[in-house]
């Protein structure tokens, strides 16, 4: 039997393993104060997981508040930060919800299942807003491409993301694959999902209405992800605690697929009052959040929860992170209809609780009360830390070590060799080995997907309304200057969305950092959040939600600070989307924006010299905004047939990718781009894009560019089977392709 509240009341002196559960002394004291007695073992379990870094954001909360405080004025935000995911109005009664989340550590332990369940989790977040998930993306970071461990982790992660996402029937429309030694032992597996919903169908996670029922539906509950709590469960019981608890969670994508269909039918029939996914902290989180967002209280009969493993103790059931489960709040009169739909999809559904007006969350176990708490105290009133932070002692030296002393290629032969070396670099090489393992066609609404700048999804067949999404994040830039680095991540994602012909609307972010207990890391975090919030304000795109992942480090060595930023844009007519590839010969190739001698943190310095130092490219949000406005107008007017932003690898990489996409060559001159050919080709200055324009529209584009204040440089023309940089180098398209596409197969088979 589990410990009852009564028992806890009469035995205040019992020693409890709060420290083993990760609570601090003052936190435990606060729990006792809130309850006016010592917690039961089940209560202790609940508080300990809900007050963990992962669930309570105790180290990051203060900093994240800026996203709200500095939020730009916008009418587009229908649901902001704090819900399962933000919801953005895209017009015509449509809204979209999107969010990126991390599943880093589990993916290191068991790459396939870790990544798979990462996708599963973020998809449920989107479903809990009442939306139909329509696409996923996967920003990934690994150690060096040729490291033994990367060969273990990357194929497993990719197969897991594909295995789960493909089986759900969600097109994968983009992501990132980045290698850097700092991620060895700490790969980053972030997953983004986007969903679509009509305004009137948006659902929120709250349990209101006395007498309404709490229905748990989906998979049965097993002992997944409850390592810590098992300690507690075994301490509390006299009988030895029997079965082992699984070290990793295994996903069942088929279960999740039927869960999606089941939810959509339930939503369509208007059968739920509120809905909540079960993710981290399982039922503890779902019940306390539902109850505290509602207007009363809630009673849960925990013994009714269907179990996969009958040996689970109540503490463990409360904590279990078994996948593919949801919780709904259903009016009694609608229960039968709800259960019928679940039965149709073969989805297990059980009434496990009821909304009441007690103002308390109580949990019953075979007639005994084992939890009796104010729900808010569990879900929202967790501890908040003001972690100390300080600019690292090494930051100045790092910034002083700029790349100007690195030997640069000068002759045509050297530049040609550098170009071929760069297009084959793991960070710049073709990612098809990865993306060909993902279904990008399913649902039939994918207008653009990898390797395009942004993924574009049609939302409405009739009106051609659509959305565009891109994610970016450059850990090297953020290491050099976390404030600027976060802004550059936003800047790049914003640009990717804009050049595809979309109007950027809103932001989600996944902040991947080392230990917040290290003042250096905490400074990086503080700077990055401040930078991102400031830039969002300036670009007019609010942060709608996201995720923080701390403790990505091995020993004292933290990963490069890696804010991954996802930008969502709206495309009024997806038929006007702009692809990256040159499509026809004899079109004019133009560069929009300005190049500077900016190579700090560049892919060239990294790949050719293994160098990281100096300052990242200068942030120029005004120029980014102007470029975005110009591109939107150009797409509307059909002025450009192709557009591709300039980022990692510089102009050279942009041109190569535009040529390779459809095998249409180009001949350009870079004489007017920058002082010398090397800087012109490899500098990574922001707010730039290359466009292809039919000859008779060049004047229109130039006029438009000048009205937006965007500098234009004529580069040359499309056509032929080579990429020619006049007076510098000539490479056949086939040779470029071999270099660009050979890297991943050679590394990963």
């Amino acid at each position, binding site marked *: 039997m589990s410990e009852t509240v009564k028992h806890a009341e009469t035995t205040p002196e019992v020693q409890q393993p709060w420290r083993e559960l990760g609570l601090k002394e003052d936190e435990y004291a606060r729990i006792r104060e809130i309850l006016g007695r010592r917690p039961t073992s089940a209560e202790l379990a609940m508080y300990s997981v809900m007050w963990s870094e992962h669930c309570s954001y105790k180290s990051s909360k203060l900093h994240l508040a800026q996203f709200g405080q500095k939020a730009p004025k916008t009418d587009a935000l229908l649901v902001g930060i704090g819900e399962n995911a933000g919801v953005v109005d895209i017009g015509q009664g449509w809204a979209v919800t999107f969010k990126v989340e991390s599943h880093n550590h589990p993916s290191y332990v068991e790459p396939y299942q870790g990544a798979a369940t990462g996708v599963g989790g973020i998809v449920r977040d989107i479903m809990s807003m009442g939306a139909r998930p329509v696409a996923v993306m996967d920003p990934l970071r690994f150690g060096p491409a040729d490291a033994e461990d990367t060969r273990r982790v990357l194929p497993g992660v990719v197969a897991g993301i594909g295995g789960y996402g493909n089986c759900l029937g969600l097109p994968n429309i983009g992501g990132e694959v980045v290698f850097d030694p700092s991620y060895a032992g700490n790969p980053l597996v972030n997953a983004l999902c986007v969903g679509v919903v009509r305004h009137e169908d948006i659902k929120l996670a709250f349990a209101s209405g006395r007498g309404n029922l709490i229905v748990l539906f989906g998979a049965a509950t097993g002992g997944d992800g409850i390592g810590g709590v098992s300690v507690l469960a075994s301490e509390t019981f006299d009988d030895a605690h029997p079965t082992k608890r*699984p070290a990793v969670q*295994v996903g069942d994508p*088929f279960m999740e697929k039927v869960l999606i269909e089941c939810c959509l039918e339930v939503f369509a029939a208007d059968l739920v009052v509120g809905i909540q996914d079960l993710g981290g902290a399982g039922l503890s989180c779902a019940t306390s959040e539902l109850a505290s967002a509602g207007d009363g209280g809630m009673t849960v009969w925990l013994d009714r929860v269907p179990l996969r493993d009958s040996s689970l103790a109540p503490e463990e059931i409360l904590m279990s992170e078994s996948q593919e489960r949801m919780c709904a709040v259903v009016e009694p009169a609608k229960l039968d209809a709800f259960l019928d739909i679940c039965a149709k999809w073969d989805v297990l559904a059980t009434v496990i609780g009821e909304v009441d007006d007690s103002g308390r969350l109580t949990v019953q176990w075979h007639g005994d009360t084992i939890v009796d708490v104010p729900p808010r105290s569990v879900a929202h009133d967790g501890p908040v830390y003001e972690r100390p932070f300080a600019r690292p002692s090494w930051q100045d030296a790092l910034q002083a070590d700029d790349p100007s002393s690195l030997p640069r290629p000068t002759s045509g032969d050297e530049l040609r060799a550098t170009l071929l070396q760069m297009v084959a670099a793991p960070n710049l090489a073709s990612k098809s080995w990865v993306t060909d393992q993902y279904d990008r066609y399913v649902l039939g609404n994918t207008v653009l997907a990898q390797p395009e700048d942004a993924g574009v999804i049609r939302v409405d067949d009739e009106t051609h309304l659509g959305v565009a999404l891109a994610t970016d994040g450059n850990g090297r830039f953020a290491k050099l200057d976390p404030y600027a680095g976060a802004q550059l991540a936003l800047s790049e994602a914003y640009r990717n969305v804009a050049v595809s012909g979309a109007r950027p609307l809103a932001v989600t972010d996944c902040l991947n950092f080392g230990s917040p207990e290290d003042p250096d890391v905490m400074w990086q975090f503080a700077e990055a959040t401040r930078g991102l919030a400031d830039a969002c304000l300036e670009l007019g795109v609010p942060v709608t939600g996201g995720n923080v992942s701390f403790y990505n480090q091995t020993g004292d060595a933290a990963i490069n600070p890696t804010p991954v930023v996802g930008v969502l844009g709206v495309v009024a007519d997806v038929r006007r989307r702009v692809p990256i590839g040159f499509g026809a010969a004899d079109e004019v190739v133009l560069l929009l924006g300005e190049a500077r001698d900016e190579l700090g943190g560049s892919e060239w310095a990294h790949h050719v010299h293994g160098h990281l130092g100096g300052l990242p490219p200068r942030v120029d949000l005004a120029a980014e905004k102007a470029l975005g406005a110009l591109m939107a107008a150009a797409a509307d007017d059909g002025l450009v047939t192709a557009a591709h932003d300039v980022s990692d690898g510089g102009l050279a990489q942009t041109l190569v990718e535009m040529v390779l996409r459809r095998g249409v060559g180009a001949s350009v001159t870079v004489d007017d781009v920058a002082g010398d050919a090397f800087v012109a080709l490899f500098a990574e200055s922001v707010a730039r894009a290359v466009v292809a324009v039919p000859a008779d529209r060049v004047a229109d584009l130039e006029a438009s560019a000048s009205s937006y204040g965007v500098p234009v440089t004529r580069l040359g023309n499309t056509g032929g089977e080579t990429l020619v940089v006049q007076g510098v180098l000539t490479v056949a398209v086939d040779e470029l392709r071999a270099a660009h596409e050979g890297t991943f197969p050679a590394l990963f088979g």
Partner: protein
Amino acid sequence: MARVVVDVMLKPEILDPQGKAVAQALPRLGYDGIAAVRQGKRFELDVVGEITEERLAQIRGAAETLLSNPVIEDFTVRVEDAI
């Protein structure tokens, strides 16, 4: 030549969606009385030469590193017979 069989099964505490799907399909086809199904892998290795203790130890090594994923799976190795 001898045959060595390596059976690899998910650890009992790990969810087995495949086994679950089979277990649910059986009664629909009229096969009742099966309480649970677990689905795993069976490897048949044709080993050249005689099976010595040393060879077997080697094969156990391969089973642990390549044929199974020790994080979620258990395995057994046994000599089937000469072929």
